[in-house]
């Protein structure tokens, strides 16, 4: 199985997401498993207003790249190939935006010994 990151671009902030969408986010790992894939990690981000950018010595307010699209979260999946990964990523509930599928070079979790 190959590993992919699914980047979620959602203009609606998490606190405004409808209950139904939140529920479907919660069910996502199970639905992906039903289709022969696996979620190996997931993370949700606070909105871009909370971000701090560091460029060399310079510290500024805001995300590194200012765009209309807001990176709201990322989850990592295992899939057979790109077509499978795309089919799994399509299960992500989105109100206003879309998702991006990117192959991973590697993925490592460092835990305390």
């Amino acid at each position, binding site marked *: 199985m190959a590993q992919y990151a699914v980047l979620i671009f959602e203009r609606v902030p998490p606190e405004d997401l409808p209950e139904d969408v939140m529920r479907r986010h919660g069910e996502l790992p199970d639905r992906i498993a039903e289709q022969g894939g696996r979620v190996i990690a997931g993370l949700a981000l606070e909105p871009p207003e909370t971000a701090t950018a560091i460029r060399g010595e310079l510290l500024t307010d805001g995300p590194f790249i200012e765009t209309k699209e807001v990176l709201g979260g990322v989850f990592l999946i295992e899939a*057979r*190939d*790109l*077509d*499978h*990964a*795309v089919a799994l990523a399509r299960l992500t509930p989105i109100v206003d935006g879309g998702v991006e599928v*990117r192959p991973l070079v590697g993925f490592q979790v460092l835990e305390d010994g």
Partner: protein
Amino acid sequence: MLAATVRVTRDLDVAEEAVQDTYVRALETWARDGVPDNPGAWLTTVARRRALNLLRRGRTLEAKLPLLIDPPGDDEPPDPDAARFPDDRLRLVFTCCHPALALEAQVALTLRLVCGVATADVAHAFLVSEPTMAARITRAKKKIAAARIPYAVPAPAELPARLDAALTVIHLLYTTGHAAPAGDALVRDELTGRALDLARMLHALLPADREAAGLLALLLVHEARRATRTDAAGRLLRLAEQDRSAWDRALIAEADGLIVGALRAGPPARFLLQAAIAALHAQAPSAEQTDWPQVLTLYDELLRVWPSAVVALNRAVALAMVEGPEAALAVVEDLERDGRLAGYRYLPSTKAELLHRLGRDAEAAEAYRAALALSDNAAERAFLQERLEG
């Protein structure tokens, strides 16, 4: 053979190298021992073995081995089942025309890997330098490997959309050759020929698919009329001026058979509708005697399944024949305001024709000049210049 080898190696570069080596070995071996009974199977088997050896030798051995879909034993006899090779080509078409690749990369890969056209010739056909085209192809191959774009025929649920992408690439290949904005005739003929081969192949592999039949029929009608699109001096001729007696009736009849069969089988989509329109033109004894109301009905349907501004512009031409130039001009002016066709040279040239027919010659001249400014094709420029002066 490249397609069959990729299935084993999952690595286009290794496969290409193996295929080249195999041709060299074939020349040596066949000169010594004679040509084998089934040369195609011999080549494929040797290329697969060669590819496996290359992979084993490579330091990426461990990474690549799990990707081998069908690892044959080294002693496997030549594969007598030649029917598998077309399936391999189909897989390769779907890999090269995967929507995760940029359209320009899809077109380049299809020419390079499915048709085996040399990179220098692909570059020439698309008016870019060879290093630029080589870089484009390399980038696309890297993406196929890194993102694991599958080497497979898509699942039934995805097949219509994916096939549409492949048909679009083949259509683009043909139209690039047919109406190349620049470049020499030899390269253009090569492109139309390759596109026609690919359309035939897809129809043969997916005989029940109405869009694959539609694309083949559409290209056959274009091909039937190709020789008459310009006069002896290379001047572009309008449909109404072309010598209909020189159209290839056998190709038109073949297209018609495909269209009738596919229309009977179910509701038409965009390629089949375009083919039906082209065939109506091809079967008419003259431009005036064309079944324009039927053409307009087909355009209405085409616009419904494929709401594109270019289709709306072509529909306006049929509308002019049914309801007169005034009604058509209103549509063209709407399209002009809409702005989606800004820079599209056929919009001002269509507008010019309609204005000319309405006797509004000063406005027509202005529109011809606008069309001239947008065209860099010598034959088209000469045509527009003549309209402007006439």
